[in-house]
C-alpha cells in the first residue's frame, strides 16, 4: 500500500500513547436531528473530550444497527442529509479543526451510487481521514477498501467475536488506521460484553496486529468506557450519544437549545471516565 503512515489518525494515537491513556471515539449521525444541529454537535466534540470522531452517514436499511441508530438515520434522512452534504460538513469542520481525525461510518450503497473514485477524491479533499463500511467484509476488498487505502484514506475494519484466529489475518490484512473490535455478536445499542471477555479479545488481537485497538458496541456509561479504556486504545460510544439527542428533542422531534449541550455534557463525562481509567489502575 502506498498510503502514508503518518496521517491524523496515526498522530492522534501516538499522542494518546504519549499521554499514557486511551482515547474516546464518539459517534453521532450527520443530519440528526437536522443538518445544522448535527454540525453544532460535531464542532463541539473535540472541546468536550472526543479524541477521534466517527460521523454516521445514514442508510434506509441499516442492517447492523439497533433501534436507536435506525431512528436517528430516519431523522437525518428526513432532514435532507445526503452523502454529498455530509462531506460538506466535513469540510466545514476541517476549517475549524485540523487535528481531530474524522472517520465516516456507514453502509456501502450510498458510496457505490456516489461513485467510488469520485467519493474517494471528494472525501480526501473535504478532509476525511478514514472509512468504516459495515457491509464490506475482506471478501469485497476490491470494491472500496483497496482503492481508498491506495488514495490515502484509512480503512478501518470491524473485528468481532466470530472472527476467529483462522480468519483474523484476512480481516487485518488490509486494515489501516486502527481496528474496531465489536465486543458483542449483535447490533449497535445492545447490552455490552463482560469486561473479562473484552480484555481477552484485546489480548488475542494484539497477538495479530500492532494497530491501535478501539472497542465499541454496548458502551453506554463513563464506567463502561473506563473499563474498556484499561485494556483498549480507545472506547467507542454511539447509541448513548444518539439517545441523548433523542431525549433532548421537542414533541415534534425538532432540536431544542438542550440538544447540542446534552451530547457535549455526556461526552465530557465519558472523556473523564476514559482519562481516569488507567490512573485508577496505577493507584
Amino acid at each position, binding site marked *: 500500500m502506498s498510503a502514508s503512515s503518518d496521517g491524523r489518525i496515526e498522530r492522534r494515537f501516538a499522542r494518546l500513547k504519549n499521554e499514557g491513556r486511551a482515547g474516546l471515539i464518539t459517534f453521532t449521525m450527520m443530519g440528526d436531528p437536522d443538518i445544522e444541529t448535527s454540525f453544532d454537535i460535531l464542532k463541539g466534540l473535540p472541546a468536550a473530550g472526543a479524541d477521534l470522531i466517527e460521523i454516521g452517514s445514514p*442508510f434506509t436499511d441499516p*442492517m447492523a444497527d439497533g433501534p436507536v441508530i435506525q431512528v436517528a438515520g430516519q431523522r437525518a434522512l428526513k432532514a435532507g442529509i445526503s452523502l454529498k452534504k455530509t462531506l460538506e460538513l466535513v469540510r466545514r469542520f476541517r476549517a475549524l479543526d485540523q487535528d481531530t481525525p474524522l472517520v465516516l461510518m456507514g453502509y456501502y450503497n450510498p458510496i457505490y451510487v456516489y461513485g467510488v473514485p469520485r467519493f474517494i477524491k471528494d472525501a480526501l479533499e473535504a478532509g476525511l481521514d478514514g472509512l468504516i463500511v459495515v457491509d464490506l467484509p475482506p471478501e469485497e476488498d476490491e470494491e472500496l477498501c483497496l482503492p481508498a487505502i491506495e488514495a490515502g484514506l484509512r480503512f478501518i475494519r470491524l473485528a468481532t467475536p466470530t472472527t476467529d484466529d483462522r480468519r483474523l489475518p484476512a480481516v487485518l490484512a488490509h486494515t489501516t488506521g486502527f481496528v474496531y473490535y465489536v465486543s458483542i455478536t449483535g447490533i449497535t445499542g445492545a447490552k455490552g460484553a463482560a469486561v473479562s471477555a473484552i480484555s481477552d479479545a484485546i489480548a488475542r488481537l494484539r497477538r495479530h496486529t500492532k494497530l491501535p485497538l478501539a472497542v465499541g458496541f454496548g458502551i453506554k456509561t463513563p464506567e463502561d468506557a473506563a473499563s474498556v479504556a484499561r485494556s483498549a486504545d480507545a472506547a467507542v460510544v454511539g447509541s448513548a450519544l444518539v439517545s441523548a439527542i433523542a431525549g433532548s428533542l421537542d414533541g415534534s422531534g425538532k432540536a431544542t437549545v438542550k440538544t447540542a449541550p446534552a451530547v457535549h455534557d455526556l461526552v465530557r463525562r465519558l472523556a473523564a471516565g476514559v482519562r481516569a481509567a488507567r490512573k485508577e489502575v496505577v493507584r
Partner: protein
Amino acid sequence: MNTAINSYRSGPDERGHFGIYGGRFVAETLMPLILDLEQAWAKARTDKSFRDELDYWLEFYVGRPSPLYHAERLTRHLGGAKIYFKRDELNHTGAHKINNCMGQILLAKRMGKTRIIAETGAGQHGVATATVCALMGLPCVVYMGAVDIERQKPNVFRMKLLGAEVVPVTSGSRTLKDAMNEALRDWVSNVESTYYLIGTVAGPHPYPAMVREFQSVIGRETREQIMKAEGRLPDSLVACVGGGSNAIGLFHPFLDEPNIKIYGVEAAGHGIETGQHAASLTAGSPGVLHGNRTYLLQDSDGQVIEAHSISAGLDYPGIGPEHAWLNDTKRVSYVPITDKEALEAFKLCARLEGILPALEPAHALAHVVKLAPTLPKDHLLVMNMCGRGDKDIFTVADALGVGM
C-alpha cells in the same frame, strides 16, 4: 471468449458473482457463518444421502412432481400459443416456497442448528418455513413487516397455528425489506444457534445459488413433462419475479436452450410512470442491499425507495442478482405488469380454468394474455403457476370494491 457467453448456467463464480451482481456484502459478524454455510452446502449438494432425503420429502410431503397442465380453455380463449401451467400452487402450503424450505431445513439440521429464523412478505415463505419447522420440531421465528401483517392476516394466523413466533417489524417502511433487515439483525445477535432460512434467490452468496438449486426442481420436472406430453421442449417460458425464486427455478434448466424465449414479469404497481411500483429491472439501477449487488429502486443518494405492488410477494425494491445478470446479458426479457392487469388475469383464470391464482403468478398470467394471441398455435408456452390465490381473496375483494 470475452464477449460470447458459453453457458448461462455456470454462474456464480466462487465468490458468488453473476457478472458484477451478487457477492457477499455483510457485516463481519456474519461472514464466518456465511462461509460455514457455503461449506456445509457444498458438501450436502454432492452427498447422495442428502439428495435422497430431500427427494423423499418432496415426493411424500410436498407432493411433487407438480403437474404440467394444458390450460385448454385459456388457450382457446386467447387463440394463439398452446398454454401449459406448471402447477406449483398444488404443493403443500400452496406455493413453490416449500421446495426451498424443505432443502434448507435439512441443511440446517445437518449443520446442527437449533433455531430457525425467516423473513416473509406475503407470508407464503413464512408459512412454508413454519411448516418445515413444525415437521422437524425446530423453533421458528418469522419477521414480517407490520404493514404486511395487516394485509395478510390469514397467513399470520396459519404461521401461529404451526407454532411459529411472528414478530411484527415496525422499522423503516414496515414491509418485506425491513423484515429482512430485522432477520439479519437477529442473526447477528444469535450466531451460534440460528439458521437464517432466506426465502428467495437473494441475499449473500451462497443463498442465491443454493435457493436456485432447490427451486430448479420446477424446471427439471417441466423438461421431462413437456417431453412426455409434446415430444419437444417449449418455445417460451413465463414467470413472475419478485426476488425471483420461482422464475429462476423454472428458467435455469432451460437457459442454455437458445431457441427458448424467456420472460420474467415484474410488478408495475400503479404504473411505472407513477413511481409506485416494484419493477427494479425496468426502473431501477445497480446497488447493494441485503448482502448482494443487484438492481434496486433507489434515489440519487443510494437510499432505497419503497416498492408498491398489490401483490405482497412482489413488493420488494430489489431482485435476485442472477436476474440482474440475465437482464443485462439479455438472455431473459423482463416486462412490467400493473396491479390492474394482474387483477384482470386473476378473474379470467378463475372463470376459464377454475383456478384462483395467487396475485404473484396473476402477473405472469397477464403477460401470457398479451403474448399468446401474437403466437402461432403450435407454439408451446409454459407459465409457472407458482402459488394459489386463497390468501389473496381479501385483497382482491378490496380492489374490486366488494365487501366481504
